[in-house]
């Protein structure tokens, strides 16, 4: 019997630091170095994206998405402007290739446009809804395109510290990003590894288990416990 579904080989795992965000006079909270932390770290002062508190942004996105559902392309263009760095950034992080990331991002926005009238506000924020679609699409891409890559690569790459891609160098490190990075540092390393391998690495929990050499059930538990702890640290309502 051949395995047609399980066992995607996804091999890039990195652990690295990013430097040189745009300068401003905003002081930076101290950041602990932690090589296992698979997130963009800021070692210089960073600019804060203007204006929007996340509440304001969230309310605006609801209106724009509703207008999009009625066929308002102008509203959708604004929605794109407000969200594209989030969507593209995540996709790029997962697929690791600028051309593919652009392609996948376009597919995601077409999907968001098509589904815009179906968004149900009672089930979560617009950005959560969009990022869920985005993550699913990016992961699909990375799994289908890397399915043939030798699994052995993955073990070798676990310990490799990769230089950050030039595009991600520009990653915007606003207050919100800093808050999330801080929340990540509150996780035990084991949970953080499991969460980041799954979320940014696009790995299945089977692969997470293999990569970390832990039982499958443990991988599942670490992913869930890590996210629950993140949720707590971020103040997401349960």
């Amino acid at each position, binding site marked *: 019997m051949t*395995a047609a579904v*399980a066992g995607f080989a996804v091999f890039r795992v990195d652990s690295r630091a990013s430097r040189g965000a745009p300068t401003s006079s905003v002081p930076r909270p101290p950041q602990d170095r932690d090589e296992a932390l698979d997130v963009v770290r800021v070692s210089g002062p960073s600019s804060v994206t203007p204006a929007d508190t996340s509440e304001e942004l969230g309310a605006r996105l609801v209106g724009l998405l509703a207008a999009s559902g009625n066929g308002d392309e102008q509203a959708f263009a604004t929605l794109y402007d407000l969200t*594209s760095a989030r969507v593209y950034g995540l996709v790029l992080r997962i697929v690791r290739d600028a051309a593919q990331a*652009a392609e996948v991002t376009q597919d995601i926005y077409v999907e968001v446009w098509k589904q815009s009238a179906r968004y149900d506000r009672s089930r979560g924020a617009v950005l959560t809804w969009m990022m*869920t679609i985005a993550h699913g699409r990016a992961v699909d891409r990375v799994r289908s395109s890397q399915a043939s890559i030798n699994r052995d690569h993955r073990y070798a790459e676990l310990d490799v510290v990769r230089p950050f891609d030039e595009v*991600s160098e520009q*990653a915007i490190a606003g207050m919100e990003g800093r808050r999330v990075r801080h929340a990540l540092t509150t996780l035990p390393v084991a949970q953080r590894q499991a969460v980041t391998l*799954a979320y940014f690495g696009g790995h299945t929990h089977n692969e997470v288990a293999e990569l970390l050499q832990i039982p499958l059930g443990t991988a599942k538990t670490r*992913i869930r416990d890590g996210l629950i702890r993140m*949720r707590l640290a971020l103040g997401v309502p349960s």
Partner: protein
Amino acid sequence: MTCQLNAWTGAYALDALDEQERAVFAEHLQTCASCDAEVRSLQSAAADLSLTAMAEPPAQLRGNVLSAISQVRPEPAPVTEPVKASAGNVVAFTPRRTNRMWPAVAAACAVVAVGASAWGLGQRHERSTTAATANRIYAVLTAADAQSVTGSFGTGHGTVINSKRLNKTILVANGIASPKPGHAYELWRVTPGGAAIPAGTFTPKNGQAITEVAGDTGSTSAISITIERAGGVAVPTTQAVLSVRL
């Protein structure tokens, strides 16, 4: 009281389940308010992770996106979806769980754990046996030696997941049509000699079905599915809609 499947919520929220597990759990979420609420809050936490990965897209992408969307229309909003409930446990669902709701949520979850419609099993099964069935399905899906094969199944596709160690096989189907009234899909275990042994019937819900192939599949060389009259027949009378070699 917690749902026995709630260990899956995190992996589901991060798209880290395998395809067949994902199908199983998505089906489960339709009826388990507790897991559903947890998934949504974990998805929200996961979405926040993307704040650490922001990057400006290439400038031309905006124009490409806008020209692509001008070619298609947004799909109409769905007619108000009824709140799904199982076996009479109507759970009024709100995005934020309150303590007051908790017993009802737990009750709904218990029903799911016990199986019945959530698993798309035939109505003939008694509830007491479906608890064991749900556990067996779970065991196969999480078995270390589980292997799967996907084939097209009418308008959709079916994935057969087999564990040699457990001698058990599960079918997960998506996007399949419902058989005409009075009919059902019937599973067959095909022996190496070519004989077809009845292995249960099922009907999809919302185009989905998750069911176990009845009996020990250790000495089975293939699994086939035909459309037969409801309740099942002793020998296949129609062409197979899906046949998968184990």
